[in-house]
């Protein structure tokens, strides 16, 4: 059990390519921290730096209050689950799990006990004598997890462990990983590009973009209060709608010239983006019943019923938006709707993309 602390961690490839630009994250003992971001944002590099597979250009990585910058991966007392599982193909499941323990010179009977315990937890007992290629994707994933937990390391590192599984299995394994992590209470760092995984797994969510941290916080806090347009559009599916707006002497103007009521919004002169989640719109029945909200006109472009809800795609002030409606939608293409965004559900971002 240990905490993990990253201070001003930087990674520079060659002389100029800055993959990770000074990152500070503190992860408490037992917490599951998810690094999420688009591909190439530096999240995997950061994870590999914690693992010791990648050198640290600048800054410090601390595990259990001890700087580990100069330690090799084996000495950091971490275990990692790789995207492709990285199971040793020539070894049986048992040996895959025992390998790390044998290398550390653990007595045989103890190894046996640990491997069997881990197999029990992960329901691998029947598979111990098989080789990786005789296993399904989900089973391989379990073995990879097993290899990590037998060592009872201070920290688990997950590098997109579920991205090679099909959607159904992914959902199942997500729950299992979460439960297992809770049960074992091992501090974990989990890298993913899937915002759903990020939201559901994280105790602390770190949203990364282009080598920097965009926002750190509890998943729901980030969802409810995204710090930038990047976070707003990355977290949540469908993403938050962003409608550009400008202020002039007589009120607010949208991109296509539509004037809207100011409703007490203070828009900077450089312009701003109004953000609202697809589920936060209310479709107004009448024409002018907007009490305590921003009323906008939406032209319907199309409707996608997905069962439990429907997505209404449309245009507000020249900008494409999506509205999430429970159940079936009564709207049809080319309908004009009046939608209301309650004031407390309104997000405002400056021209630089930062939250106002």
């Amino acid at each position, binding site marked *: 059990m240990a905490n993990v602390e990253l201070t001003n961690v930087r990674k520079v490839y060659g002389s100029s390519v800055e993959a990770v630009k000074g990152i500070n994250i503190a992860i408490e003992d037992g917490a599951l921290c998810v690094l999420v971001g688009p591909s190439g944002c530096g999240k995997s590099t950061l994870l590999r730096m914690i*693992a*010791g*597979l990648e050198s640290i250009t600048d800054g410090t990585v601390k595990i259990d209050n001890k700087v580990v910058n100069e330690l*090799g*991966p*084996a000495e950091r007392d*971490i*275990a*990692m689950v*790789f*995207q*492709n599982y*990285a199971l*040793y*193909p*020539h070894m049986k499941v048992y040996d895959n799990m025992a*390998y*790390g323990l044998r*290398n*550390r010179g653990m007595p045989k009977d103890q190894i046996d006990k640990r491997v069997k315990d881990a197999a029990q937890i992960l329901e691998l007992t029947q598979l111990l004598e098989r080789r990786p*290629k005789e296993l399904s994707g989900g089973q391989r994933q379990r073995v990879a997890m097993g*290899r990590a937990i037998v*060592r009872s390391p201070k920290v688990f590192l997950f590098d997109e462990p579920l991205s090679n599984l099909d959607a159904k299995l992914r959902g199942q394994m997500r729950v299992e990983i979460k439960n297992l992590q809770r049960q074992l209470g091992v501090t974990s760092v989990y890298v993913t590009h899937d915002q759903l995984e990020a939201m559901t797994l994280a105790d602390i969510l770190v949203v990364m973009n282009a080598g920097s941290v965009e926002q750190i916080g509890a998943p729901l806090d980030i969802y409810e209060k995204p710090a930038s347009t990047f976070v707003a559009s990355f977290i949540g599916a469908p993403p938050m709608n962003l409608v550009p707006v400008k202020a002039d002497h007589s009120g607010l103007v949208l991109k296509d010239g539509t004037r809207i009521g100011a409703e007490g919004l203070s828009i900077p002169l450089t312009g701003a983006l109004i953000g609202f989640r697809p589920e936060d719109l209310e479709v107004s029945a009448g024409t002018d019943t907007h009490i305590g909200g921003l009323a906008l006109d939406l032209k319907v472009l199309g409707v996608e019923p997905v069962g439990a809800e429907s997505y209404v795609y449309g245009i507000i002030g020249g900008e494409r938006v999506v509205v999430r409606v429970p159940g079936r939608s009564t709207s049809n293409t080319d309908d004009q709707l009046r939608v209301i965004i309650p004031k407390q559900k309104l997000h405002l971002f400056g021209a630089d993309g930062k939250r106002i």
Partner: protein
Amino acid sequence: MASSTRVTFPNKFLPYLLLAPQLAITAIFFYWPASQAIYQSVLREDPFGLSTQFVGLDNFRRVLGDPNYLNSLQVTVIFSVATALIAMALALLLAVMADKVIRGKGIYRTLLIWPYAVAPAIAGMLWLFLFNPSMGTLAHLVRSAGYNWDPLLNGDQAMVLIVSAAAWKQISYNFLFFVAGLQSIPKSLIEAAAIDGAGETKRFWTIVFPLLAPTTFFLLVVNTVYAFFDTFGIIHAVTGGGPGKATETLVYKVYNDGFVNLILGDSAAQSVILMIIVIGLTAIQFRYVERKVHYG
């Protein structure tokens, strides 16, 4: 139909036509000479080819009873095992080292592959000139270091010389395959092993080497065949089987008895025995060694 997934050619003759070149080559360059060898091995023929006589297995009896032949067998075993082992071990070492190079990886690889393009006889001449006791530059170095280097008189030294030359030429080929084999091992496996607390040496022997096994096995078969047959040019150029019969391998003796001494029956019998030995060796390799190979 059970074989519905099989490709069927609309034209009945097309598949035979497509196979014909390969079949022709195999027939002309393998089956025909092989059957000729078997045929001649039971005949006794005078050097001028004027009279032949059927002698049954007499040729085989005489060859197997000949101490020179048994010597040649021993020479071949030493030569083949040494050549295959050295060629494979050095190639593996070079491949592992070249895999670690970061700058100029391609240049190293290209340079290491070049010796393979050298014809055996030329390679032999090269080594001969370098190590000829009277004019070789490297021989001069060895001698000035105080070592009595004379492969023309010393059979062991002659053996060292042809093994070196034969291995040197084969290293490139083996290197190429080992490099490819190493590249096909996912990097994450090595990283996982590093996290699992295995040092570099341990990683090599417990992860890399077992995963290279298919490559190693393939090369073992190829190198054995190479050492048995393809090294004729090198031996012919460097030692001519000498001094005495210290470097006369089975293949060289087949040539020497058949084409120099014109004892065609004996020579044919020897090549039949050689064929049986190589078939047997390959069968053993597949039967016993391959079982230990894990194909990923």
